């Protein structure tokens, strides 16, 4: 639910990083926070469990400058990935404008990715949103683990498994090393803006 403030010429947009637990959603935000530290005036908000897992959400507000004369404020959120936290996941999705699905490329996490994507589909349906209509970017994370000999699903395999129907833009990434983290974010911001364009004219 993007909000356009005609008085201050400001747009606020909500982007949510979704995906299975331990997939790298928080690591994506941490990398963005570190990388753009000079432009982010506030602290990143995280609500974690004692075991350092996301309990409610992470939140990072991010000012990206002006587009079409509007000051653009992006609000990046993550959801808790663990299956048992679906109630909080659904809460964070309220009013979402764009989604990054962070899939875990490790072969052992194959089922978890599918379950999480199905869960996203159901939670969006609750808000009467269609997974094929909402701006969405796929990110296949942990690709750097190949160097350590950990079995990974191939890009083609992941595409076929998760993206054959949605056909969203997809990136191979390593959130930990910062590979394609910024590109993923730029892509989702761009796509979200295209979808808002009519309202800004």
């Amino acid at each position, binding site marked *: *639910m993007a909000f356009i403030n005609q008085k201050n010429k400001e747009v606020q947009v909500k982007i949510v990083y979704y995906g299975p637990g331990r997939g790298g959603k928080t690591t994506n935000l941490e990398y963005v926070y570190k990388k753009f530290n000079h432009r982010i005036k506030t602290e990143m908000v995280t609500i974690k469990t004692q075991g350092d897992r996301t309990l409610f959400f992470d939140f990072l507000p991010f000012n990206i400058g002006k587009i079409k004369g509007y000051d653009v404020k992006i609000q990046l959120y993550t959801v808790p990935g663990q299956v048992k936290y679906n109630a909080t996941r659904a809460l*964070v999705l309220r009013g*979402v*404008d764009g989604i990054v699905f962070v899939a875990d490329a490790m072969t052992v996490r194959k089922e978890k990715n599918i379950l999480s994507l199905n869960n996203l589909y159901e939670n969006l349906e609750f808000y009467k949103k269609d997974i094929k209509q909402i701006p969405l970017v796929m990110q296949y994370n942990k690709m750097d683990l190949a160097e350590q000999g950990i079995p990974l699903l191939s890009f083609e395999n992941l595409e076929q498994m998760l993206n054959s129907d949605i056909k969203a833009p997809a990136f191979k990434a390593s959130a930990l090393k910062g590979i394609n983290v910024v590109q993923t974010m730029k892509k989702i911001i761009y796509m979200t803006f295209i979808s808002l364009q009519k309202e800004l004219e």
Partner: protein
Amino acid sequence: MTYTLGKNQLDSIENVLKKDLIDLGVQCVFLIDMAGNIIADLHQAEIIHDIYSLAALAAGNFGAVNAMAKIIGENEFSLLFHKGKNENIHFSKVSQDFLLITIFGNHISLGFLRLKVNEVIEKVKNTIEPS
């Protein structure tokens, strides 16, 4: 879903928040939507809070408490209040999509604040969602 509020609507909301709350000594008041976006924020000159984080947490908190309400058979808890040593925070639902948050010190009584907040909500509701 995207929504837009024009300059006149936002001016009118800010006037109400200023006259009915800030001028009475409320430290900080902000109107947010349930997605965590900030529609209006006003505060006393010396107060600086990270309002974007506050708004995100407030929307999440309100949503979580409403989910608790449903579990115990209530439709919602339409107002929340957290008491601190020096500052207190009060959340009140304006409509399905909007929430009014006030931060105030101990020199304002909760009863008085609630009375004023109720008046403000009626005025704000008429501006955002004219009948």
